């Protein structure tokens, strides 16, 4: 009756994605919040730049950065720390008992949340562009897609690595996720060019895939504003490719290692840590 390993894990991804997709359709209240909320932050930061009479592209950077926060938050809250909640309600042990890769469970969560996340990102971008009369100039759409794809794979790989912490820790890991929200906005230059942090800080921040992804995407939309770019697009694409490989491998090892640690210490399914 059971299929090979690949089919089993593909089914697992589909199975885990299902509650996310169905949940989106059965409780549509999220649509309003996922459209309105990011716009508030974008609006606040856009008005700061406006008040300070900043150059027009900075408002564009804010809109693009605001759109990309959707993916960072999805990785952090709907994938990584989701394992914490799964542990609390007793689903985690059922997942861990199943003969599938842990990455399939996480991939399922990511895929299932993609619809909501993409809607949030696109709506932020579109409404932000309209509200603040942002002029975006995209001449290489395929390159944009490629950069975006690499960024997402690397980012979700990193997210899987973080998720492994939840196999061992409870509230500590949850608070770590909380802690990482704003520092990553800062370090990755969500609302200003990351170059502003200085070369070495920006280099360190480049370990977070969304840093270089965002920088490259901004360059694609503002090809003449090279003074705000950190590295050339081609360089950033290569680094992102390397990060894809590194994070996916690290995720696999980290999940296996943390699971083993959790099983040894008895904390794998321990609730209310």
């Amino acid at each position, binding site marked *: *009756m*059971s*299929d090979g390993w690949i*089919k*089993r894990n593909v*089914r*697992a991804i*589909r*199975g*885990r994605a*299902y*509650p996310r997709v*169905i*949940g989106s359709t*059965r*409780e549509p209240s999220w649509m309003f919040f996922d459209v309105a909320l990011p716009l508030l932050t974008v609006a606040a930061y856009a008005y700061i730049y406006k008040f300070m009479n900043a150059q027009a592209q900075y408002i564009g950077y804010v809109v693009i950065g605001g759109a990309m926060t959707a993916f960072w938050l999805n990785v952090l809250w709907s994938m990584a720390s989701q394992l914490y909640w799964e542990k609390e*309600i*007793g*689903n985690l*042990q*059922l*997942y*861990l*008992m*199943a*003969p*599938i890769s842990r990455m399939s469970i996480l991939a399922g969560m990511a895929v299932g949340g993609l619809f909501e996340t993409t809607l949030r990102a696109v709506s932020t971008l579109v409404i932000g562009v309209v509200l603040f009369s942002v002029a975006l100039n995209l001449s290489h759409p395929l390159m944009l897609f490629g950069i975006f794809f690499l960024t997402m794979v690397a980012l979700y790989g990193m997210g899987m690595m973080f998720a492994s912490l939840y196999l061992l820790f409870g509230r500590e890991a949850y608070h770590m996720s909380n802690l990482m929200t704003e520092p990553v906005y800062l370090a990755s230059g969500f609302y200003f060019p990351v170059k502003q942090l200085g070369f070495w800080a920006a280099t360190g921040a480049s370990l977070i895939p969304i840093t270089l992804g965002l920088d490259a995407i901004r360059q694609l939309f503002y090809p003449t504003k090279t003074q705000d770019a950190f590295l050339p697009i081609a360089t950033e694409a290569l680094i992102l490719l390397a990060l894809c490989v590194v994070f996916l491998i690290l995720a696999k090892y980290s999940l296996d290692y943390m699971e*083993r640690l959790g*099983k*040894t*210490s*008895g904390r*794998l*399914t321990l609730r209310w840590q």
Partner: protein
Amino acid sequence: MGDTPAVETKALTRVFQPKKKKEGKSVTALDRVDLRIEKGELFGLLGPNGAGKTTLLKILSTLLLPTSGKAYVAGFDLEKDFVEVRRRINMVSGGEISGYGLLTVRENLWMFSQFYGIKSKDAKERIDSLLDKFGLSDKRDEKVRTLSTGQRQKMNVVRGFVTDPDILFLDEPTLGLDVNASRVIRDHIVDWVDNGKDKTVLLTTHYMAEADQLCNRIAIIDEGKILACNTPENLKKMVRMNKTLTLDVTLLADKSVLGAVKGVDKFTYVDDAEKNLTHLKFVLTDESAVSDIVSDVLGNGSKIVSLQKTEPTLEDVFIKMVGKGFE
């Protein structure tokens, strides 16, 4: 029953260390447990709270590593070949709240079936059949959050069977269920083991009657140690308790002959003139004394109003072994 047991443990030990010293001492949840469960057995594990039952189940279901010792499920080493183990097992715990409130019963069950690589069409057929057997067909398309506690537990039990595992771990599966629901589940467990090929169940329970009724063999565990492991009948024989016979008869004038019946160790009586009854109690060394007692009572012109024979129960076994009842 094949040569490879379904479950085998050798000196299995699990010690829990606190994170910090101030959180208390270490706890030995399992202490050199040796167990062998053959394929096709319905095996019971009885023990008070904190005895180590759930710890053992967690190890066998690959959620926990032992501190020392070895464990094998379906012939596979739990530490090295856990993926192979997972393909062959499933577990259901009593009082589970797993699942997603927003999904329907069917959807929840389907989702979990996908983690075991079961084709959707097959999964849905199995789910519908099991829901029907467990009396949940009308709840199939209801959201999980609308289910009562008992219905939810039934759904959890269905989840355990949907994957058709070789070995099923049931940790107090009838907890919180009413009499009828419990009976349906027990009947299904027995059917599944009896009619399946080498299907094995390891069942933990607090309900002595359940263990007595269902299990081929029972292990009694306390403070991490297996105190006894045998068939229910043999376990009861270990408790050298005599059987008792209690009779309520119409007022019996002459009771002298009853004390002299062969096979009666002790005999007491109480006359209740108001109700015109005599309450007789016999401690028997030989069950064949029952017929003699009945003949003597009837021969003396008395009528039997009620008759009850009691034998050592599993509870007696448990109390003798563990030294206490269930807390």
